[in-house]
């Protein structure tokens, strides 16, 4: 008997006719499920076509909103800490409280992969070339929403990035951030 998860993963995809193979579609759904239920991501959706070129993506990709900010660039982190420090000094001297760094979560691209796959730089570059800087918001994309998306974009987000989700046969998923270009590491 098929479990609910199994039926979810292998459910036939929505009306959009794609050239993607069923295993690629089920892979995307498996990652989506993992993010939704194990990492509490929201606004998750599966993309089959590039919003830049409107051509089919190399494989279905997932986008979503994490509960906390996934990635803070080290320069942005320095800026945020300075800002938080100024705010702490501005507060009344008697008031307790340390540094309060507030960062809004950002929408992320997720690239679902299987561990046994082989990749090449060409394919990786192809994925990045088909992506926008920030994934589009769910719902019908109107010019207004696109513009709003641009305006709210973080000025520190200057290189494309995807979350590489790699799933093993035992359904363990590991996540790595993949930047397009030379991006210095976080000082954590």
């Amino acid at each position, binding site marked *: 008997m098929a479990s609910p998860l199994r039926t979810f993963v292998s459910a036939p995809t929505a009306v959009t006719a794609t050239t993607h193979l069923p295993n690629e579609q089920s892979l995307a759904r498996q990652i989506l499920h993992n993010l939704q239920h194990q*990492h509490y991501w929201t606004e998750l959706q599966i993309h089959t076509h590039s919003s830049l070129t409107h051509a089919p993506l190399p494989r279905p990709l997932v986008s979503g909103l994490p509960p906390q900010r*996934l*990635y803070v660039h080290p320069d942005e982190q320095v800026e945020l800490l300075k800002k938080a420090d100024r705010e702490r000094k501005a507060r009344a001297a008697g008031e307790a409280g340390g540094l309060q760094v507030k960062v809004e979560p950002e929408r992320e691209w997720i690239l679902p*992969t*299987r*561990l046994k*796959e*082989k*990749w*090449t*730089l*060409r394919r*990786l*570059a192809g994925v*990045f070339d088909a992506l926008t800087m920030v994934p589009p918001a769910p719902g019908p994309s109107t010019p207004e929403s696109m513009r709003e998306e641009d305006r709210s974009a973080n000025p520190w987000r200057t290189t494309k990035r995807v*979350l*590489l989700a*790699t799933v093993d046969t035992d359904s363990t998923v*590991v*996540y*790595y*951030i*993949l*930047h*397009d*270009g*030379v*991006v*210095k*590491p*976080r*000082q*954590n």
Partner: protein
Amino acid sequence: MAAAPAPSPITEPFTISLIAGRYLLFDVDVIAHCRRAHNICGLLVGTIPNLSQQNVFLGIPLELMPEEARVLVDRDAAYVVDDAQAHQTSFAEMSREERLKYMEEMDRRGDEVSREQREMAERRKERALREKGLRRKVLERENSVAESFAESTATDETFQVDDSSVASSGLGFIMKGSSFVETPVTEEKTQVDYGSLSNSDLGFIMKGSSFSDSWVQIKAPKIDSPAAEASLFEPTPASPSPAPSVGSKRSKSVAVQKHFVTPTTSYPPLPTPAKDPSLPPPAVPNSYPLFRYLHSKGYFHMPGLRFGCHYNVYPGDPLRYHSHFAATGLAWDQEFDLLDVVGGGRLGTGTKKAYMIGGEDPEVDAKDKDPVRAFSIEWAAL
């Protein structure tokens, strides 16, 4: 803090020695210049044979990665010289004048070495005498010996016609400690003095002083004595006084052991070899495009063995900065395992780096945009 010494200027292009398939730099100034002006660190590999050391204790030569050599050659900052070949052809084509000049230079250096050795021996002797508290006395004695020696030779000259035993007393100089009853008082005195001197010389030998040292000390009278003998048996004492002085002079110059210097480098003696256009540029692995790309952005590189990658990439001099990337260069269509990405990403994040893979797209024209693309990988902490 004391100001750093002004760097000696390097004229580009400089030479990179290709020896046994390795690219080496032998000049400290060139090494410093590479690091300062070209962001090229290389790796010092000079060590004691059969007792190789960890990297902090190594000296010149500096070994360059083929990628580093290639970058320098492509920038026209350097050119590669096949050292073995250049050495053989240049020495074969050396003119007679050059050869003589070179040998003279080697002779001069040999003299320098022997002079230094002699001075060192003198110093050692003085120190040892001072320790025994003999220095002043001996100096005085030496003076008196020199005087009395001159006297005695003078008297020898006068005595030589009627007294032949003096000649044997001259031999007594060699046989230390032998005394002749019938020798004149002055002779007796000098002989004893010499005996004490040579005894102290013997003491030197016992103490394990170097061979050349003792050789100098003992040889001096040995060489001197035949000269003295020759002067003794001269039938006509035409020039009595110069003979001993010449002898002593000769003893001084000859007594020092001659040094022959074998040069350890091919240039200075040879002029710096010219660029050989037939020599191909350094062969590089397919990770080179990534190296070139990162180097053009001002990054420094170190070998990546310690982090399981091709290059450790530093944003500045590795002595000042922590490395930013563990980079692996790949061909555009070279397949890689995702497990390698996961492993590299995890190790990089654990060591405050990002893992990087990159390569050159062969279909992109370098004039339009950089054909090299790099991807930085960090753990997502999910």
